[in-house]
């Protein structure tokens, strides 16, 4: 092997993960295999996402989607503020998060109060509304699913609480 002189940039080349401030263990957001990932963070930004070699499931490997997790998270196309479309409007408006949360709570209350059924026509206890439905949860944490079920079922009486598992 004969080597030529090198540029300083080549001499100084190093993996960007060397300077990471933290390395955080995560789980791939795509399929249900549950591959463990390592998320490298520098200056509060994600700089790399790779397979975790310690995991007995994936042993450091990832599929193309798992390998693309970095771009799923760090992506200029992400929505980062609330978009609101008023009835009959032809455009999105940017709105503050607090405003949207208040408004959504109001709308849930209105719909619930207008549609709540305490008893069926033949007098049986129902305590439900079928005018509100929720869908989703399969790419979310169990803690999030738990709060959805608790709030919407146990709190509000919504019965159509569903997710991708039904599909």
């Amino acid at each position, binding site marked *: 092997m004969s080597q*030529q002189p090198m540029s300083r940039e080549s001499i100084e080349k*190093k993996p960007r993960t060397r300077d990471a401030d933290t390395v955080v263990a995560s789980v791939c957001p795509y399929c249900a295999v549950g591959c463990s990932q390592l998320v490298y963070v520098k200056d509060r930004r994600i700089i790399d996402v790779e397979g975790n070699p310690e995991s007995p499931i994936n042993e450091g490997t990832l599929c193309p989607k798992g390998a693309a997790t970095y771009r799923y998270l760090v992506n200029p196309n992400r929505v980062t503020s609330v978009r609101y479309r008023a009835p009959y409007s032809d455009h999105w408006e940017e709105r503050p998060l607090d405003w949207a949360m208040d408004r959504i709570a109001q709308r849930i209350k209105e719909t619930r109060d207008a549609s709540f059924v305490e008893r069926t026509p033949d007098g049986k206890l129902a305590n439900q509304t079928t005018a509100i439905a929720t869908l989703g949860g399969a790419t979310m944490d169990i803690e999030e699913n738990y709060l959805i079920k608790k709030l919407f079922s146990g709190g509000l009486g919504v019965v159509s609480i569903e997710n991708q598992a039904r599909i």
Partner: protein
Amino acid sequence: MIDAYKRLMNVEPPPPPKKARGFFTDTSLCIGCKACEVACKQWNQLPADGFAMTGNSYDNTGTLGATTWRHVQFVEQAKANSSRQDQRWLMMSDVCKHCANAACLEACPTGALIRTEFDTVYVQQDICNGCGFCVPACPFGVIDRAPKHGQFEAGTAHKCTLCYDRLKDDMTPACAKSCPTASIQFGDVEELQQRARHRLAELKARGEAKAELYGMPEGKEATEVGQLHAFFLLLDKPQTYNLPEVPRLPRKTMGQRYGWSAAVGLGFALVGALVFGRRQ
């Protein structure tokens, strides 16, 4: 910015050599998932380069290029009758071969293309002047010049670096690390060659009559380019995977070309410095 003066100032002696590193890509284990392609783009932060379907099986990548350093090929095989006898779907993750006698390196007039301490072939982006001589020199069509509008300086040459940055910290290259089925194996070339010979014998014993290694020192494909530091176990003839039976070096004309390229390269660089220098 291409700048001949800066380029000359930057040159330093190379680090001491280490064991030769490379890839053994065992296509008998490939499931065509393309994790290697994405992991490579992720680590090297290469852009997506086109959203067009080719119609060629599941290969919408097409070729290796300036911003695509791994390319999974798909070859559909079946006897032409309805019973689909001997149906196979061959998959192979192609990559720069990191040849022992690298034509690209020999064609490079500027010293941008170098052999690293890991015996891999590497393009130094701060030196490459975009002359493009390496491109036709490569018998595999691997190295490519950056397109006009992209994240790289237009015209500069790019290809797999064998994750030169990662090698410095003893990390596995991104493609090999991600590969879920160990089709892409990374390691010391000599050890990988041993493993490959053993693997070939194993497959032959299992009845894989067409299996062969490509890029071993003893193979005829090494006649001119030498052993490939990224070599393959194939399940069919090299041509099936668009690999040349005997990759050729453009050696005969090389002395001549080298002189020309040095001159032209310098000329390009100076013109470049004048033309583009103002833009910055």
